[in-house]
């Protein structure tokens, strides 16, 4: 178990600071369109960070987090959809007010996390991975069946506002900072959680579940609570992602999306929280750089991933912290 080091805090603050000025930099260099890419880094980085929380600290390898991403996207997206055409969802009028849709998506994610986690955590090891993946598929097919939102084609919500309270965040730079604020808040919260007594029990379960049980902890409940917290945050990220893209489709919940979140965590560095955001940054950067050269950038993601698994299992954060340590 890693103790919070000075270097780790410095890396977290440093990377977030870098991210906070990135829109100004891309604007100044005349590539303002990249702001939306940065926003996606923030949103998917948030999801990867919450996955790192269950995986790096809780030892629960989930290959089903795209289910929560999709749940958040469909909660927020459906409400927005109904506000656009004025229809009702189960008797409730729709809304594009993110102060309503985002918290609601978070709650839906937590509940879904309790159900999926509650069942999957009855299993261990490989079974757990496969069970989360299977639940992911179940959710994916359910979204596919929602003909009202375009079935497997999805539906555009382009006429919707990005309303945040009285603020209209339709401007991409404004919206970036809204998402960034959410990311910073949750980075602080998650860092506090992993250092809290609750977080210590969860980390203890990762190291030695039998011993934690022998000490009298209800390991199942602690792990389930951690899983649900992660699901809630990932679901929030899904809601943010649909507000960003203004397009709702089942692809949010595709199993490869779960895999990509996993990749972000590993590329960035497992068990560091900020690693998820760094990994998201690295992945979107690679996509952006290679998209002009080749359509098959995922091929190179695969090759790079193999290199990381075999050569640098602690990811970029591990490399950066290793550099930091050498100066200690």
């Amino acid at each position, binding site marked *: 178990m890693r103790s919070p080091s000075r270097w780790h805090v410095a890396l977290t603050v440093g990377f977030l600071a870098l991210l906070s000025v990135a829109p100004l930099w891309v604007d100044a260099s005349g590539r303002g369109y990249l702001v939306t890419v940065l926003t996606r880094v923030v949103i998917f980085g948030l999801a990867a960070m919450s996955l790192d929380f269950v*995986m790096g600290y809780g030892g629960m*390898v989930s*290959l089903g987090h795209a289910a929560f991403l999709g749940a958040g996207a469909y909660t927020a997206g459906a409400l927005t959809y109904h506000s656009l055409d004025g229809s009702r969802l189960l008797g409730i009028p729709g809304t594009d007010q993110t102060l309503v849709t985002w918290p609601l998506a978070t709650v839906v994610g937590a509940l879904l996390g309790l159900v999926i986690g509650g*069942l*999957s955590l*009855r*299993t*261990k*090891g*490989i*079974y757990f*991975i*496969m*069970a989360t*993946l*299977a*639940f992911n*598929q*179940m959710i994916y*097919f*359910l979204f*596919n*069946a*929602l*003909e009202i939102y375009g*079935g*497997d084609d999805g539906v555009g919500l382009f006429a919707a506002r990005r309303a945040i309270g009285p603020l209209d965040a339709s401007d991409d730079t404004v919206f970036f900072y809204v998402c960034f604020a959410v990311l910073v808040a949750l980075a602080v919260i998650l860092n506090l959680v992993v250092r809290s007594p609750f977080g210590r029990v969860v980390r203890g379960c990762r190291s030695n579940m039998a011993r934690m049980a022998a000490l009298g902890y209800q390991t199942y409940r602690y792990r389930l609570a951690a899983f649900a917290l992660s699901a809630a945050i990932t679901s929030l990220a899904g809601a943010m992602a649909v507000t960003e893209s203004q397009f709702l489709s089942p692809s949010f919940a595709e*199993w*490869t999306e779960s*895999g990509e979140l*996993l*990749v972000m965590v*590993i590329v960035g560095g*497992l068990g560091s929280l900020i690693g998820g955001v760094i990994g998201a940054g690295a992945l979107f950067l690679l996509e952006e750089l290679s998209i002009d050269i080749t359509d*098959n950038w*995922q*091929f190179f*993601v*695969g*090759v790079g*991933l*193999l290199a*990381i*698994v*075999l050569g640098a*299992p602690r990811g970029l954060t591990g490399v950066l912290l290793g550099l930091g340590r050498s100066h200690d």
Partner: protein
Amino acid sequence: MNLFIEQTLNGLQLGFTLLMVSAGLTLIFGIMNIINLAHGSAFVAADVGGRTGNYLLALLAGIAGAAVAGLIVELGLIRRLYHRDHLYQVLATFALVLIANQAVQMIWGSTPRSVAAPEFLDRTVTVLPGLPYPAYRLAITATGIAVIVFLHLLVERTRVGMWIRAGRTHRELLGAFGVNVRLLYTLVFAVGAGLAGLAGVVAAPFLSVESGIGDHFLILSFVVIVVGGIGSLKGALYGSLMLGRTYLPDLFGRFVDPSTAATAGASVASASIYLVMVVVLVVKPNGLFGLADE
């Protein structure tokens, strides 16, 4: 009544196709304790072989190609991951999925293709008065039965099978007795991949062959194994047949008649197989026939 019989036969055929993928996977999980997401890609590799025209040639090429691919992957990659966390096995094989899917697209494009059944099976037989049924589907069911009988005899009646069973629980001891465990693992992995390849070729005529098609079968196989229990051939058999019957409406909607694939009913049917899994997880977390401590 005829419809019911036809549906059941279809379910059997699908179940046995699924079984060919799952049986190889469950052997790999059971003995090597390694998770392999790229297993479905062997399915694709074989599908590709299935386009060469001569069906029997394609069958042999598909199985051999998938087995050799499995051999290379085991020697070059999986071998380094035995002692690593499952997470890294997931990641490494996910990387293989990305590479394989993209490679298929780069080489053959993203347009789905269809593969014809071999001529001598491209007809119907009358299984019951008034119920014609495609001979090819019956042949798949027969192939699946042959595979499971072969695997059962291999695992339960031969020396290699004895090693496989021993390797599941007493890996070090098996090595101490002079068995080349590394070679055994490599062979099991190659046989598993070959089986996925076989499934890929035989399934090709009633699927539209495209990059990523293996993923569907891979995830279904995971469900089969979660339901049946890791390492249990019996579990894979019962799991496959159960899911084959349940999943049926969707798979046929999805692959045979794309226009009906869009209907909500099909997607709900495919979601329903996961309900089967949920029930089993609640009652028996290690699967129906899983070992008590995995």
